[in-house]
């Protein structure tokens, strides 16, 4: 099924969030942007399904 899952899906949300923030530790703003872009591309490839990715993209644009 190509539906974007927006229900809680982390076994431990706080572990994930800490890992995400730690990934950026010591990076300049420019480096952080680069790292974020690469991270998005890696995860997008993992998901693969373009319809899911399009839903995520439009959700990301809400209230911007």
């Amino acid at each position: 099924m190509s539906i974007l899952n927006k229900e809680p899906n982390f076994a431990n949300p706080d572990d994930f969030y800490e890992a995400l923030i730690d990934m950026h530790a010591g990076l300049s703003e420019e480096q952080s942007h680069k790292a974020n872009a690469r991270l998005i591309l890696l995860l997008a490839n993992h998901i693969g399904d373009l319809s899911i990715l399009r839903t995520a993209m439009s959700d990301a644009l809400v209230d911007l």
Partner: protein
Amino acid sequence: MTLSTATAAHYQNLKFDYIKPVEITQSTASTYPVIIVGAGPVGLSCAIDLARQGVQVVLLDDDNCLSVGSRALCFAKRTLEIFDRLGCGEQVVNKGIAWNVGKVFFKDDPVYTFNLLPEQGHQRPAFVNLQQYYVEGYLYECATQYPQLDLRWKSKVVALEQNESGAKLTVETPDGSYTISAQYVIAADGSRSSVRNLMGLESKGRVFRDRFLIADVKMQADFPTERWFWFDPPFHPNQSVLLHREPDDVWRIDFQLGWDADPEIEKTPEKVIPRVQALLGADVKFTLEWVSVYTFACMRMDKFQHGRVLFAGDAAHGVSPFGARGANSGVQDADNLCWKLAMVLKGQAPQALLSTYGDEREFAADENILNSTRATDFITPKSKISQLFRDAVLDLSKHHPFARRLVNSGRLSLPSTYSHSVLNTPDQDVFAGAMSPGAPLVDAPVRLQEKDAWLLPQCGEKFSVLVFTDEQSVAEKIEKDMQSLPDIECLVISKTALKLKNTLCLQDHQGLLTARLDAQANTTYFIRPDQHVAARWRSFDVSTIQQAWRTATAQEEM
């Protein structure tokens, strides 16, 4: 005078009498089993717990009054259960304000609501808010009931030396100084612990470069009895605000100020009143009860035990205030320490039992520090990029359930499960649910002698065994078998009421206890004096219980 009916103003002005100690009046040199330094919630809890177990204690405090301001405020379910055992749980709950629900706001909008006790069938709520001076007052009142508990005010420890069999303290009083010895010392003298300093020890960790204003505000208001947390609200832009209800029409408000704020200026009414007014609206009348500006650190001592000196509470570990993990974890330290210390002093267990205090509570401190550090990092982002992610989480949380789980305004105090403790007997049988060895025993409603009761008040202080059976004949055999283990309390649990001569029979009339413990016929739980699970089996067998007792009390191998 009964303290429990006293008013807040009375508590704040209470001065306790200093009594010239026997060591000065008679120039005697006394040795006590235990000296406790610091009569805050942790020191008082330790003193009462030990006195209940017949241990003679001297409790020293450098001051002679209760704490100033609401301070600890949020007392968690597990702490209330410990206070029940110590004798003041009912008073704390009756005077306090019970709450289970927290709400989180981002800018103008509510984004997330959580319920910390989503199920029924527990005696105590997730939290009770009560000013620390009340809690200390109730504990003090309990403490005065024990002749073996000697509470000495205006007694400041100025020197400490120890050897293999005990420690010698020099204590300064209004009548000069004296020395006093003890087999063991408990240092519960707070984050700036003088015992820790005298011993040249450190509490190490991360200091957060941020300042918070805390204001106790007296007013008539119609906010619900919930914990409200704002990220970046319009009335206090770019910072966070936390609102809690206290008894006596007092409200606690915490304003994040940032590192550059001047603590002396921020404490003045001219600065505080407009901040509070901005939150409440221009027409709300209020008075300030107590104001303070604080910073914090997440830190702990490497080891909580140094020879004959045991550190507990803020003296041993410090956390940020967002999880209500300070006083709560300190009282849980006391709960863990005192039964072990009493057994060692009575010669019922080797010193190895005492060293598990450090193992278990250092683990708990790490858990508290981890949770409180993460909350602090979320609330006060340290870089532009972490602010960006924080705000993205808050934006997404308005629409998407997954993001609400990432919002962290404080993960509130829960007791630790000592999963890796050497005192546990690991499971051999298959069980579902959270009650694995090391876990704090869950509460449930039961019937006792045809009256409604709760499970937790029926066990604790001693080791106990809970056995599930619906057969009268099996129950009678259990009672007979348990006669060979006189130090272990036996509780038989059944669906319909059973009757035994010398054994407590609990009726699980709602089936909740059976469900929460994943119990079947003959399921047996072995519970420590601090109400943590030590072992569990699918069958009842006296020799395995005895072996589990040996493990749970760190006896040498046979």
